[in-house]
């Protein structure tokens, strides 16, 4: 059994602080080259196949922009 996860980032709320990026144990997240309406490079799943749905990113996000999903496969 393995865990597969995915995150959804509220890209308009994200401030591009990178705190989620450094807290992701599987290097799933990176900051996008695109910016949101406030000019922040928002977080996104750069390597979605890595995500295990551990919720670490969402737990540390100061702006609570991340929703996490997880399935057992």
């Amino acid at each position, binding site marked *: 059994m393995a865990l*597969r996860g*995915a995150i959804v980032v509220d890209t308009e709320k994200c401030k591009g602080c990178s*705190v989620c990026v450094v807290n992701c144990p599987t290097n799933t997240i990176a900051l996008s080259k695109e910016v949101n309406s406030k000019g922040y490079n928002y977080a996104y799943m750069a390597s979605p196949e890595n995500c295990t749905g551990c919720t670490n990113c969402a737990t540390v996000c100061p702006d609570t922009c991340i929703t996490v999903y997880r399935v057992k496969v």
Partner: protein
Amino acid sequence: MHTTMDIKDIIKPENKVYSKTPVLLDNVMHYCPGCSHGTAHKLVAEVIEEMGIQENTIGVSPVGCSVFAYNYVDIDWQQAAHGRAPALATATKRLYPDKYVFTYQGDGDLASIGTAEIMHACNRGENIVVIFINNAIYGMTGGQMAPTTLMGMKTATSPYGRREDLHGKPLRITDLISQLEGTCYVTRQSVQNAAGARKTKRAIRKGFENSAKKKGTSFIEIVSSCNSGWKMSPVKANEWMVENMFPSYPLGDLKDI
């Protein structure tokens, strides 16, 4: 391996394992990117949701960056004059003994202008919870030295670094508070990583549970970063905090009775 599983098949309501607590309002926080205040607010809101006490909790916000905490956590709030949150919380708790009452204060608010209020509220053992955000600086007013500023640390008012002969040494106010007989639980935590945030959340919950048991004051310091005041990126500020703040403000319980 099922690495080819479609993201669409994972992102379904029944697979959701983490989402924003409804106790946090949808307002975009005014805090700087990466500020510890946001994470601390979220943890308070999650505890309130888990304990089912949204209708029974009254927060007292300070003067400082977190003055607007009432815009983010959907409970009843009061906003105190600078440093006076523990006095307001005392009155509130005495008038409404069945409510959960907490203060949320920065280090300038709690350890400088409000030293008398926090000391006496803790000494009286008011049945309140104190959330103390120690970012070693006055964030809101542009990064002036606080009593908690580290030795050698450069701020707007100590441009050559904090000096013992001029400014004295950093005030470990949490250690002093642990000596007061009115406190039942005094702990120092942090929120820069997931393990720390989860521990901080358990500490906040324990504080509220102590209030219900009328055990006295619970005091939770969160060693925090103010990346704007420290003039660092958010990630660098958190690293600097771990390296430089933790030796002066070691994490863990100082008192738990």
